[in-house]
């Protein structure tokens, strides 16, 4: 599979605090890749740096061979990377449909936007039922569906999801995982940040383990799942 994203020696931080200390990571087309690690390891900062919300200090981010480490959020999205932020961050006071349309903000192809609306409504029928409701009044699981659907509405080549399972019941996580597998089956590459390593390893074929701003381990999830150190640190066995 051709390479979609390659990050090399990436450092970033906020003010005097450096969070990322030289991240190397790659994502190939069609994959689901997970980034796991404990709280404060830098997973969210990594996604925020890729999407241009946080400026990269050194290193490179190549997306389809193009350097995007200096690009702003709108350029990164236009290049084809959508970012579903931690805590869903849906827009209060706007309906589910308006939230989804904001996902397609950069697009001008009205007919195709309508097709994609139908696509995400097919994927998550709950959103169709609630399309006119204030998005932030839905349950946590429904909000996560809406946030993922909003990410898809930009028609990205790579979908980054920060904390898919946070605060959700196991049955809902199962439902969302199925949705993600279906989306991936339709050809969308996914980069998933997840604190729940079990969920992450079930979904992803490869994973990167982040510890204090560095990649501590990387590899196939089936191999990592048998790694004694990872089993002890993250899987609780």
């Amino acid at each position, binding site marked *: 599979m051709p390479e979609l994203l390659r990050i090399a020696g990436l450092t970033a931080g906020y003010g005097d605090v450096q969070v990322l200390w030289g991240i190397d990571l790659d994502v190939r087309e069609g994959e689901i890749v997970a980034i796991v690690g404990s709280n404060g390891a830098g997973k969210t900062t990594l996604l925020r740096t890729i999407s241009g919300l946080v400026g990269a200090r050194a290193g490179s981010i190549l997306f389809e061979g193009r350097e995007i480490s200096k690009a702003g959020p709108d350029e990164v*999205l236009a290049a084809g990377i959508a970012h579903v932020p931690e805590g869903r961050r849906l827009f*209060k006071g*706007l309906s589910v449909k308006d939230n989804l349309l904001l996902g397609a*903000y950069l697009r001008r192809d009205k007919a195709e936007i309508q097709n994609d609306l139908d696509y995400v409504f097919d994927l998550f029928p709950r959103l169709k039922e609630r399309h006119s409701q204030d998005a932030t009044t839905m349950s946590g699981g429904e909000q996560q569906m809406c946030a993922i659907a909003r990410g898809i509405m930009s028609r990205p080549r790579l979908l980054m999801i920060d904390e898919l399972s946070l605060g959700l019941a196991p049955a809902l996580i199962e439902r969302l995982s199925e949705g993600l597998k279906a989306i991936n089956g339709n050809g969308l590459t996914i980069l998933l940040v997840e604190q729940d390593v079990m969920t992450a390893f079930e979904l992803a074929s490869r994973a990167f383990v982040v510890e204090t701003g560095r990649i501590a381990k990387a590899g196939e999830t089936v191999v990592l799942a048998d790694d004694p150190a990872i089993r002890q640190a993250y899987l609780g066995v």
Partner: protein
Amino acid sequence: MDFAQILANGVVLGALYACLAVGFSLVWGVLNVINMLHGSFIILGGYLTYFAWQMFGIHPLIMLPIVAAFLFVVGYALQAIFINKVVTAPVLVTLTLTFGLDMILYNLMTVYFSATPRQVTLGLGSIQLFGVYLPVVRLLGMALALLLTGLLYVTLRGSRIGRAIVAVRMDRSAAALMGIRVNRIYAITFGIGALMAGAAGALFAMVFPITTNLSGVFLGKAFVVCVIGGLGSVPGALVGGLALGIIESFSGVLLGPQHALTVGFLVMLLLLIVRPTGLVGVKGYE
């Protein structure tokens, strides 16, 4: 004066107040900027309308869209060049900046236009409806004020740019992740605020004499309307504007016109204590 007449006067005035305040409210709600320029924007719109009519004979209704477009450009430029530099700073910083810019604009207008009260006199006569006497020009002003306010509402609720403005207001960094260029939306929003002020000024110039000295009065009214109705929403400005118009109309008759303004501010203070979100404001949405 009978009840219906006072009420009608209040509603006419209130519609103009809504149009006057809605841009101020939008800028405050979306940018968290208290725009001290707003009163002078209204005066500028009014003066431009007056001088175009007096010097070139251009009808105010033709000037209205021209003035509105011109003020949009002025507002957009001011935000893009100056205010965006400090827009994330605490509210006192942006308030000081717009206050300074207002001093410049206010004094420029006083120098070049003088402070003489000016009014466009169209002489359209008046009509009588159910015993209520209504000058046509005021009815026209009211209708246009409501129309413009309604247009703004439809734009915010139903258009791509309107959704982007609401999104930026609710969550700036999530909006950036949608590909929205936040600073550009700020400039557009500030431009729309100035546009509504300019349009309100054009309408006011047809109904009342305006002078630069009224700049602070208009700003104060915008403040009161926002607090009474609820900050940052078009329905809030509409309700607040109509409420203030009716309050002023009744207190002007009952207590004398010199007390109308005081009563308006008293109601504002009262609402700040008992219902700080305003009459139709939503908590967390202010």
